[in-house]
């Protein structure tokens, strides 16, 4: 049971990661740097609960805000480039963050032992949930409160003028400018929102995993982040959720019997999926069909 709850938590956290890339992709920006914001959220929140002994909720919000702040900063130079250049810039950012935490050592004594990030050895003592006696079920509920909150907000925003503006920028930047949309503001806002969401995901991840190190936050994780909305399509936030369930729940769990060979098959599956369904597994026609099937057709 605990194992499945763990999986449900992971799906929730990866949904947040995927949604952070989704927001950016609405504006036509592809970022391979979401793992970096995720890492910032994870380490910041971890440091706040472990070293500063804050409760988890303020630590989580602070972690998300710090991640959002860095996303805001990255937004400006990244704005000067687009398309594949942005991909490179964000990979570089995320690697920078990873190397920063690889080098970060901040140990403080706590009783007989010392706690805190320990560069290569990782950050091992993020035991807030255990120390406060949360049950696995409570932790899962806590994670999903944020997932549902973020999904609801994005779903809501998508029906507002702001959502239409984001999509307009993603569709055609020149036309968007010509109807009076400030590209800089919209793109930086999307970047910041993406950073915030990834930061929440990272903070939750650090506390559910209790142990993080720099190897968690590689380009592989960033690839997952963009793979979810690419597979799920950009027509709605639910696509991302479905893609996460499909990849983490069905593929990763389902292929567990392959053991070490799983990653090889995984690479092949990505290649196959992109060749067969280049616009995503749940592209517009498929999404319409699914919607009709579950009776969600019709727009707000």
């Amino acid at each position, binding site marked *: 049971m605990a194992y499945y709850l763990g999986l449900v938590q992971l799906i929730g956290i990866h949904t947040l990661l995927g949604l952070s890339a989704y927001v950016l992709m609405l504006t036509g920006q*592809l970022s391979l740097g979401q793992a970096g914001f995720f890492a910032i959220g994870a380490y910041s929140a971890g440091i706040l609960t472990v070293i500063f002994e804050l409760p988890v909720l303020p630590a989580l919000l602070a972690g998300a805000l710090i991640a959002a702040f860095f996303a805001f900063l990255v937004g400006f*130079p*990244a704005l*000067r*480039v*687009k*398309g*594949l*250049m*942005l*991909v*490179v*810039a964000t*990979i*570089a*950012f995320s*690697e*920078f963050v990873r*190397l*920063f935490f*690889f*080098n970060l050592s901040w140990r403080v004594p706590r009783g007989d032992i010392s706690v805190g990030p320990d*560069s290569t050895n990782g950050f091992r003592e993020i035991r807030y949930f255990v120390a406060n006696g949360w049950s696995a079920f409570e932790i899962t509920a806590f994670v999903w409160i944020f997932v549902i909150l973020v999904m609801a907000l994005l779903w809501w925003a998508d029906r507002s003028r702001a959502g239409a503006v984001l999509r307009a920028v993603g569709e055609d930047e020149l036309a968007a400018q010509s109807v009076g949309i400030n590209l800089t503001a919209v793109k930086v806002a999307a970047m910041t929102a993406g950073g915030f969401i990834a930061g929440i995901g990272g903070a939750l991840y650090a506390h559910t995993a209790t142990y993080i190190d720099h190897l968690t936050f*590689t*380009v*592989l994780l960033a*690839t997952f982040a*963009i*793979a979810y909305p*690419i597979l799920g399509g950009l027509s709605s936030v639910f696509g991302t959720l479905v893609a996460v369930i499909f990849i983490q729940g069905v593929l990763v769990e389902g292929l567990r019997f392959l053991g*070490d*060979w799983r*990653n*090889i098959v*995984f*690479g*092949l*599956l*990505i*290649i196959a999926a*992109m*060749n067969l369904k*280049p*616009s995503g597994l749940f592209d517009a026609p498929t999404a319409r069909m699914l919607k009709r099937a579950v009776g969600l057709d019709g727009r707000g």
Partner: protein
Amino acid sequence: MSDFWFEFVEITQTVGDGLLFGATYALIGIGFTLIFGAMGKLNMTYAGASLAGAYAGLAAFTFVNAPALVVFLVSALASGFIGFVVYVACFRFIPVNNHLAALMASIGALFFIDEIVIHATDGSPLTFPAMFEYVMFDLGPYGIRGDLLFVFVVCVVSTAGLVYVLYRSRLGLATRAVSQQDVAARLCGIDVHRTNAITFVLAGLLGGIAGSMTAAAVGVLSPLVTIPLTVKGLIVTVIGGLGSIPGAIVAGLLVGGLENVFLYFRGVNERDMYVLLLLFVFLVFRPHGISGTAIDRD
């Protein structure tokens, strides 16, 4: 005074070594830039394929004790072959204007290649044989490592060969035509798919040389190098200006030289952080890279 002199020699020596080694980065950068120039797409597999080529060379050495020259040749050919396979698997059948899908597919291929290497080697680093005897050329207070010099010379020769192919042969003409005007090239009877495939193979050959050279100079081959080498190759490509071969050469040497400066002052763990910062400096002040050609294709 003598302390200062000693330090000065030390630093310039470091920079010199870095410049020589930077030639391999230049080759990787050229490979990325070549494919970007031809198709307007990033082939994320490239650095991974180059290292896989080096592994093939290593296998040739381990199993049949091939001589140095053959090892490099096998590396180049293997990487060229991988380049062809990657083209077919990740680019050939994906719609031309769908950059996202091609990018994702090539990332998938990167994981695939990486995992195969990890499986074949149990994930542990392997020593790459010293292909040549340890030679040191003395130049006043400086010493030039023979192997680095060799790496540099091989890189220069292969770059020259590539430039010759691109600018002096009919094949190169077709490649450049496709990169400049895809549709028009098609109408002139150029087989775009074939030309693109050849570009991938050419880039792969270069990559194999770069991969085995890197391995020979460092002495170790490890799957852990893939992502850092990919990132460095991309940085060189962007700093040089997407699609610019001269830019990639200059940027490769620049990154190689500066990297050793960072290494000298800040140590190996922090070195790469500063290289990454260098990219952001360029993005802010010179977003189109050294060559300055504004390619805003996305």
